[in-house]
């Protein structure tokens, strides 16, 4: 745990949070934020594609199906919790649920770097699961929000476009394809940029995310205690569901940890962009504060080791 806290990536996140809370005048240019997020998404995809090239395609079927199932179940559970216990209205509950059903690519990068540090191996195709899990929850969230809504017919074409051609999925899936087509040998020329610098770029991005997350902390008072509890409890529930799915899919303990973390993570790129257009009545302060202000830091600092422990325990219990 302490080991995790002393990772410079996590320390850079803390530096960003402190900068925001102390009102330092450190401001990263928006072009840097955009560049880093494009770089990280593309690099994750490329790396995943190279690994994927090494996996027999048959191995992918069961994990992919179970991941889709996770992407449908977790937002429904989240929605029920938010409506019944949290008393949120339909639009807010649906939008928040979509965020928690979807995934955070940066949290994915952090769990991979965590597993590399503790020396645990995992399946080469996990990046496919990242891409697969990103989408269904967003569709489920929109469907729930629009059921019996008076907002006029849902333009599915526009929405599918928004989701599949949003920058996040496009870069992840595109990178996956490029990496898979090119294969390991041809990627060597571009690997100093996309793989060698990856962890450093992640540290810089987390500095920025820390600043952004800290700006959300001010909103915590307004959004209330329930959301804080939800932002910690929901990832634990989803992480457990993800760990079970990983076990059921026959993944290794490392791969199970990855799937648990994916399930536990909450989106902050693809989901906010889609929800803002598809569910305009949902208040962005709620979903951004929960996802970025609570769940992201929780996962990055405490969650990942917990999901690793969950995965290890389940695997031990399952023999």
């Amino acid at each position, binding site marked *: 745990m302490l080991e995790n806290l002393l990772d410079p990536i996590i320390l850079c996140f803390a530096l960003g949070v402190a900068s925001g809370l102390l009102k330092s005048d450190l*401001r*990263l240019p*928006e072009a840097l*934020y*955009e560049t880093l997020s494009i770089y990280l998404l593309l690099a994750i995809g490329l790396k995943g594609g190279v690994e994927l090239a090494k996996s027999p395609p048959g191995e992918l079927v069961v994990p992919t199906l179970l991941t889709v199932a996770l992407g449908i179940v977790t937002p429904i559970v989240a929605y029920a919790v938010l409506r019944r216990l949290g008393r949120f209205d339909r639009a807010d509950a649906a939008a928040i649920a979509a965020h928690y059903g979807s995934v955070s690519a940066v949290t994915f990068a952090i769990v991979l770097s965590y597993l590399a540090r503790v020396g645990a191996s995992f399946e080469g195709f996990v990046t496919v699961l990242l891409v697969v899990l990103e989408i269904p929850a967003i569709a489920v969230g929109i469907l729930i929000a629009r059921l019996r809504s008076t907002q006029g017919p849902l333009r599915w074409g526009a929405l599918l476009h928004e989701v599949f051609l949003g920058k996040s999925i496009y870069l992840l899936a595109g990178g996956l394809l490029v990496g898979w087509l090119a294969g390991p040998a041809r990627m060597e020329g571009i690997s100093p940029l996309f793989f060698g610098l990856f962890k450093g770029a992640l540290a810089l991005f987390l500095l*920025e995310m820390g*600043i*952004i997350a800290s*700006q959300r902390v001010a909103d915590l008072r307004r959004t209330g205690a329930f959301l804080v509890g939800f932002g910690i409890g929901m990832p634990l529930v989803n992480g457990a569901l993800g760990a079970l799915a990983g076990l059921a899919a026959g993944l290794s303990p490392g791969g199970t940890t990855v799937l648990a973390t994916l399930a536990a993570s909450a989106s*902050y*790129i693809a989901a*906010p*962009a889609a929800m*803002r*257009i598809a569910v*305009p*009545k949902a208040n*962005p*302060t709620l979903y*951004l504060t929960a996802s970025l202000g609570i769940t992201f830091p929780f996962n990055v600092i405490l969650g990942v080791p917990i999901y690793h422990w969950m995965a290890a325990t389940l695997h031990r219990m399952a023999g």
Partner: protein
Amino acid sequence: MSPRDPTKRKLVTIVAESALEGPIAKEIKRLGARGYTIVEARGEGSRGVRQGTWEQNSNVEFQVVCSEDSARAIMSSLYDQFYEDYAMVAWAADVEILRGDKF
């Protein structure tokens, strides 16, 4: 009228969250404006501070020179569609142009 006589038009300025860029551009053109200019912006208003640090808190500012009718139509249509749910403000002013047929 010679093309060089100054002519009266309206300048509509709209500041809105970046997510609305596409919908607003479409609406502006649908309602008769022949063009628009966009600049990146940040700011503060009734929905809090929008620092422009990432995609979820940045604004765009549209400037549209158009006829008085289009101006009226654009302002009320955007108002009806987006005002309640999105960070957005708009205002209109009188301007003079040199080439009446251009706008």
